[in-house]
Structures are given as C-alpha cells and as structure tokens.
C-alpha cells in the first residue's frame, strides 16, 4: 500500500467551510517555540535547585582587590562594588527570583480565583458588587496597582510580591468569572440546584473542577509575567533590599555603573529576559496543546492501494469500495464499507449512534480527524479518485452540511460575506459577483428577504434559517454530491420538514446526488430513494426506502422499524426496543456484530461473519438466517 497524506492528496479544503487546523497534536510540542520554552524552563528549574549549592560561596566572597572590574577570564561578567563575582551572583539569584515569582503568582491566582468565583455563591447584590469591582480593577494599569500596593505595604521583597500578586489578580478573576459563568449555565448545575445542593458545594464540586484546566494554563503564562514584574519592581528599588538579591536587584545595582562597565547589567538582564520568554512560550504551548486536543484535527493519513478492485462504475457520482477508518489502539469504526450513488439519487445512511456514519461522511470529504487512518480500494467522486482532485475541485464538487449549522458558520462574520468567500476562493469570482451570487443562493433556499439576511450575523438567524444558509453555502459551487450529516436533528419537526423538502428540491433542480445521514429511520424512509443500514462500521442491509416498512430483512433493520413509535402503536403494550448495546469499535469480533442482540443468532453467527449479498430486487443483506 502506498501511503499518501491528506495534504498532498489535495483534500485540504473539502467543503469551503472547514476550519483549517494544520499540524498534528504532537506537532505542538515539536515546534521551535515549544522546544525553546521547554528547554528554558527546565534550565531555570535546574538553576533554582543547584545554583546556590554550587555557586553560593563564590557569590558571597568579598574581594577588596577586585572591586568593580569589567569582564575578565576570572570574572566573565565582572564584579560588584565589593568585588563579588557577578556571574556567580546571577546564577545564585535564580532561586530567589523564581521563588518570589512563584509566590506572587500563587497569591495573584488565589485572590483572583476567589474574587472570580464569589459571584457564583453570593446573593445577587453582592455578586454584582464584586463583578463591578473586578471590572474596574481589570481596567486599571497593572504596574500602577503593583507599585501602589508595594509602597503601601512597605518596601522589600514582601511588598513587591504582594504588589505583583495584586496586579495579577484581576486578570485571573475575570477569567474565572467567564469560565464559571459558562459552567454555571450547564444542565448538570441546574440539576444539582433542583436537588437542593448548596451553592458552596456546587462551586466546589461542579464549577471549580470543570474550569481548572484553563486556569492552570493561565498560571504558567502568569509566572513569566510575574518574573518580569518583580524584576521591574526591584529595578525601581521597590523590591528586594540588600543584603538579599534577586535578578532585579542585581540589575538595579549594575545600572549605576552601566556607563563604566555595561556587562555588569547585561548578566541579570539576560537572565530575566530568558526566564520570562521561557515561561511565556511554555504557557502558549500548553494552551495550544489544550485547544488542539479539544478541537478537531484534519491532517489524516490516507492510503490507497494501487490495485483497484473490479471495474469502476462510470455512471456513479460517488463510488466507495472497501473503505476503512481506524484509529490507533485497535479501534476501527468503519470496516470495509462499500457504497455507490447515482446522479440525482437520494441515499439514506442510517444506524445507531457510533455505527460509523459520520466517519464515513468525513472520509468522503477528507475530514477524518487526526490520528485516524483512512484506507480504501476505491473512492471516486464524479469519476475521479478523490486523492487526485485539487482542494478547489473537491470544494466545488462536494457540499457538506452538518448537524450544527454553527459549526460551518463563523459567528463573527456576516452570512452573505461567508457565502461570497466560498465563490472567491473556489471559483475565483470577483467580490461583487460573489456577493450577488450569495444573495441569489440564499433566495434559492427560500430564505425570506435574502438581501437583508445576507447582512445579518449567524446568531441573528433562527436554527432553521442557519441550516438553510449552510445549504446555500454548499450551493455556491455546482456540487455533484451533497453529504448531509444529521442536518435536521437539531431542528424541530415542522422546520425539519421544510429543510427536508428543500433538500429534495435542490436535488431535483441541480441533479446533484444526496447522501443523507440520520439515526432517524422514519425521516430517512420518507426522504430517500434508497436506504443503507449500518451497524458497527459495516453495511448490513441496503434496500429501496419505500420497502423499508414491509420488506426489511435484516434482524437489526426490522428491530429498528419495530421500535419506531407512530400514532397507531398500541399504547397498552411496551414499545419495542433493542436490548443490549452495539459493540465498541475496538471490540467487534469475528462473527456477526449483531449476534449479541439478535433473537435469531446461532453458533455460526458468533464465529463467522455474513457477507453482504443480493437478496431479491435491489436489496442486499448480510445475515446468515436470511440469505441461507
């Protein structure tokens, strides 16, 4: 199998509205800033531990014969006014400087987190007061706040640490408040409130644990700031007082002689700068790594065996043969799936949650998240291997609509502008043309007053209108295939109906084919020409939609149909359901994956997997009991 990556396969920009995220999760740690930051912080940590032990004596040794010397082989950074070696002093001062910075950060973080969390526990009036105070403090310049506190609490290390702590606190308070407010709105907090759990406990049990991660990230970044701030305070003479010394104090002392011996100030300045840069880079890296692991990734390895299985079907819009998606750790959510769609055909892909529907769609669009691996015997769109299509070609030929329209729309941009962007990027249209086309397409999906809606932001549209806008976005090109993954699940029945009608009309008008993914077999049965049923990563049955109710043959399909409540089911009897659960993608065994839940299962089912074979007119089934 020849390996190709998604990037050189040209599927970077599949649908024009995919958020780009280059690099891999591991890549965050392999970037230059991360490496430098990590190395610097490690160096500082080692210095803090061993510095005073190794150079402690040298730093205190007074040498009346070597007062205020410049750089020499013996004293690379020169000496101070008592003849002490400055390099040794800089190396020793690391521990004190870092300890003070750590202390200041902890003070700032503690005060900040308490202030930020208070509004969640205080009664409304008190909460408003605290919020107001925090807002005022955030607006106040940090250094002034620090100096004011330092002067008020007395010169020296204590004052400086308190000062910097106070300067850091408002930022932490604001961050805590914002994070806490979002968690406080969660359903699980509402549930706890209804159970009478006291506010203090809600804070300790629900809110703090769920906001801890971003707060800790902020801590690393603040440490760098505190270090610089403390050096600044010492440099202004507000900080550490002799005989103690930190980097800022060394800088302050050296500065007096800077015109005589510039190198005496150079050492401490460089130390402060390196440590500050180190902590900031590390903090940035941590933050980026965290956002990476929560956000989706799309830099996937994609491999296509050179040997094609069978003859390609020249008429199919989409032809998928032997598609497999796997993740490290033995998880294979899509297993050898084959599927083909004719022009103008509407095919429904159903199956319960986790059966691999969305990953199948993602594989078609080249959107499988890292570290997933996609392999296939054939994956052709409009007669061409998707790996040979450029991003532009794929972007125009394929439109993707997802469950959450906000995932496809940028909340900060106007709807019309976002649609126009697609035409500018993919078709090289001029701005004015693109804009005109955007309004035209919005009208096409029956958005009332399209010109006015184009000037709105996504949040100003209702859920149904947003989904229309996303469909319009897909229609900015001339798609051969529309892949819609649960496009109506978030909408209520009446709006759902309108969107389904719209999709049907779009297909009739443009001749595009539609792959419609849903867990709702009733909706699929109504909308589609043909239904493909997936279970545990494989197709288990395929049949015309209008025969779903009466002719479904696979036990799983039949159970799905039976568990659908409608307006005529007998209310006196329990509703049918399917006992048990689908095996996890890493646990699918050798036999039929449905065997554990199937009333017809035999010994053979458990050990041998049934292939998908033709069963009557336009129907294929994978089940031993049905086909043999």
């Amino acid at each position: 199998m020849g390996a190709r990556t998604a990037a050189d396969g040209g599927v970077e920009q599949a649908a024009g509205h995919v958020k780009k995220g280059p690099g891999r999760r591991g890549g965050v740690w392999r970037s230059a800033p991360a490496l430098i930051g990590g190395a610097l912080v490690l160096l500082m940590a080692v210095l803090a531990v061993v510095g005073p032990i190794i150079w402690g004596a040298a730093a205190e040794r007074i040498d009346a014969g070597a007062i205020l010397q410049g750089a020499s082989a013996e004293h690379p950074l020169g000496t101070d006014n008592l003849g002490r070696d400055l390099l040794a002093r800089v190396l020793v001062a690391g521990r004190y400087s870092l300890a003070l910075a750590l202390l200041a950060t902890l003070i700032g973080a503690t005060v900040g987190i308490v202030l930020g969390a208070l509004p969640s526990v205080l009664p409304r009036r008190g909460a408003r007061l605290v919020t107001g105070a925090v807002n005022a403090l955030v607006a106040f310049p940090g250094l002034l706040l620090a100096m004011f506190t330092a002067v008020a609490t007395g010169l020296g290390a204590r004052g400086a640490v308190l000062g910097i702590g106070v300067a850091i606190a408002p930022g932490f308070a604001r961050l805590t408040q914002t994070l806490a407010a979002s968690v406080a709105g969660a359903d699980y907090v509402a549930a706890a409130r209804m159970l009478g759990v006291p506010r203090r406990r809600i804070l300790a049990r629900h809110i703090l644990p769920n906001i801890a991660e971003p707060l800790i990230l902020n801590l690393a970044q603040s440490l760098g700031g505190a270090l610089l701030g403390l050096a600044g305070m010492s440099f202004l003479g507000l900080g550490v007082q002799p005989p103690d010394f930190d980097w800022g104090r060394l800088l302050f002392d050296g500065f007096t002689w800077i015109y005589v011996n510039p190198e005496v100030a150079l050492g401490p300045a460089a130390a402060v700068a390196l440590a500050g840069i180190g902590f900031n880079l590390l903090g940035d890296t941590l933050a980026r790594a965290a956002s990476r692991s929560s956000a989706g990734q799309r830099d996937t390895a994609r491999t296509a065996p050179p040997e094609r299985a069978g003859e390609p079907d020249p008429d199919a819009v989409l032809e998928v043969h032997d598609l497999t998606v796997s993740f490290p750790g033995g998880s294979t959510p899509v297993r050898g799936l084959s599927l083909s769609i004719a022009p103008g055909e509407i095919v429904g892909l159903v199956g319960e949650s986790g059966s691999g529907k969305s990953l199948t769609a993602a594989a078609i669009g080249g959107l499988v998240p890292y570290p997933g691996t996609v392999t296939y015997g054939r994956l052709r769109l409009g007669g061409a291997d998707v790996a040979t299509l450029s991003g532009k070609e794929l972007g125009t030929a394929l439109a993707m609509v997802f469950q959450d329209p906000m995932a496809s729309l940028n909340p900060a941009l106007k709807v019309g502008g976002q649609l126009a962007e697609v035409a500018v990027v993919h078709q090289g249209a001029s701005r004015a043309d693109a804009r005109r086309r955007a309004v035209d397409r919005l009208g096409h999906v029956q958005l009332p007053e399209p010109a006015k809606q184009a000037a709105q932001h996504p949040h100003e549209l209702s859920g149904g209108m947003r989904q229309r806008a996303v469909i319009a976005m897909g229609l900015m090109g001339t798609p051969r295939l529309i892949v819609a993954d649960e496009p109506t699940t978030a909408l209520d029945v009446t709006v759902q109906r309108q969107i389904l009608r719209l999709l049907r009309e779009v297909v009739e008008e443009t001749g595009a084919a539609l792959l419609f993914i849903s867990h709702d077999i009733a909706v699929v049965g109504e909308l589609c020409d043909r239904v493909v049923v997936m279970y545990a990563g494989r197709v288990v049955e395929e049949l015309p939609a209008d025969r779903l109710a009466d002719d479904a043959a696979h036990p799983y399909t039949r159970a799905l149909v039976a568990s659908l409540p409608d307006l005529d089911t007998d209310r006196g009897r329990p509703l049918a359901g399917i006992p048990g659960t689908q095996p996890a993608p890493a646990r699918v065994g050798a036999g039929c994956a449905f065997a554990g839940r199937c009333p017809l299962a035999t010994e053979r089912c458990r050990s041998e997997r049934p292939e998908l074979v033709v069963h009557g007119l336009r129907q294929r089934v994978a089940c031993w009991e049905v086909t043999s």
Partner: protein
Amino acid sequence: MRIEGLTVRYGGFTAVDDVTLEIPDGHAVGVVGESGSGKSSLARAVSGLVPYTGRIEGATRIQMVFQDPYASLDPRMTIGETVGEGIAKRRRATEVPRLLGLVQLPAELAGRYPRELSGGQRQRVAIARALGGDPALLIADEITGSLDVSVQGTVLNLVRGLRDELGLSMLFISHNLAVVRYVADTIAVMHRGRIVEHGPTEQVIGEPAHDYTRTLLAAVPRLRGRS
C-alpha cells in the same frame, strides 16, 4: 398540582404567555409544540430555574430530566456521585444501588464516568438522579430527543413503568406527538407561548380541535407503506 397564569419574559420577549395547566396527582401531562413555542421555558419556570409571574400551587419536590444526556452529567463526577448528589451522606451507600436498579442499570456502573456510557445509559443515570430527589412531580424535557430510536423505546418504557410503579406525576415534553402519545394521559399543545388545546391523549390525536395540532400531526414522520 396547578399552574395558573404563568408568564415568563426574557427582556421584552414573552416566552410563556399566561399558561394555566392542571396536573392531577399521578397523571402524566404531555406538552407538545415546535421549538421556540415555550415548552422548555415552561418546564424551567415550574422547576424554579427561571423567574416567572403567576402561581404554581401544590408544587412540592419537583425534579427535572434534561434533553441532552451529554450535557446534563458532570464529566468529572462518577455515576455514583451524580446519582447520590441529592441524598444524605449516610443513606447514599444503600440508595445509589437502589436508584440504579430502578432505572435498570447494573450497580457496578456507580464507579464509572459519563464518557464511558452510551446515550441511553446516561439518560437513565439522569433519571435516577432526579428520582433521588424523591419528586412528587417529574419534568421530562425532550428526554429522548437525542437518543436513537432503538434506545428511545427502552427509555420510554422505563418512564412509563416508573410512573405506574411510583405513582409519579409527570410533565412530559416533546416535539414528537408519537412519543408524547405513548406516555401521557392528557396532551397540551403549545404554540407561541400559549396553550391552544388541552385534552385527553386519544381525543387530541384522534379529533384535533386546533389547526396547529393538525400541522403537528401531519409532521410526525411515518414510514411509507406501513399498514
């Protein structure tokens, strides 16, 4: 229990407009309507989660089960901690397994985290947590909305069984009439913040009095060819 003249306003927008609704003891009242019709606001007002005007009489011990079982369980708490949340410490060790049993989950699940559970299992956990508050009224807001059909049936059966077994009163909210019909004794149809029709389940479905009810009925997805 009786809700009288209940109104919920968000700024200038009236989400629930002067709703009066009777929930007799041990009865399940279904509320249907499209999204934005005020169903969830009604539920949240009755639960005391949003401010309202009007009166709610005879409402003691109300608990609610939410729509999205992925958002309604704290990801950092074990199932046992979640279910035991409303229960006094000394009774937790015996109550948690009992509650898990009520919703037909094995007691071993208590040590697991929500991410290890399927959607249907999570929704059972949410129901168990609500039952832990010993509710006189259980509000179920679209609780099968994000579940698979194959799982939906088992959750609906469970809810019906619990109602019979524990004599719970229920406010059962859904946009799917076929689902509400299965659980509710009476159905209230909500449209633009008002209740436009309220009657016994078979009557509302068999002989809808309001145009909007007919629209909702027509929108229930049905399989073609089903006899």
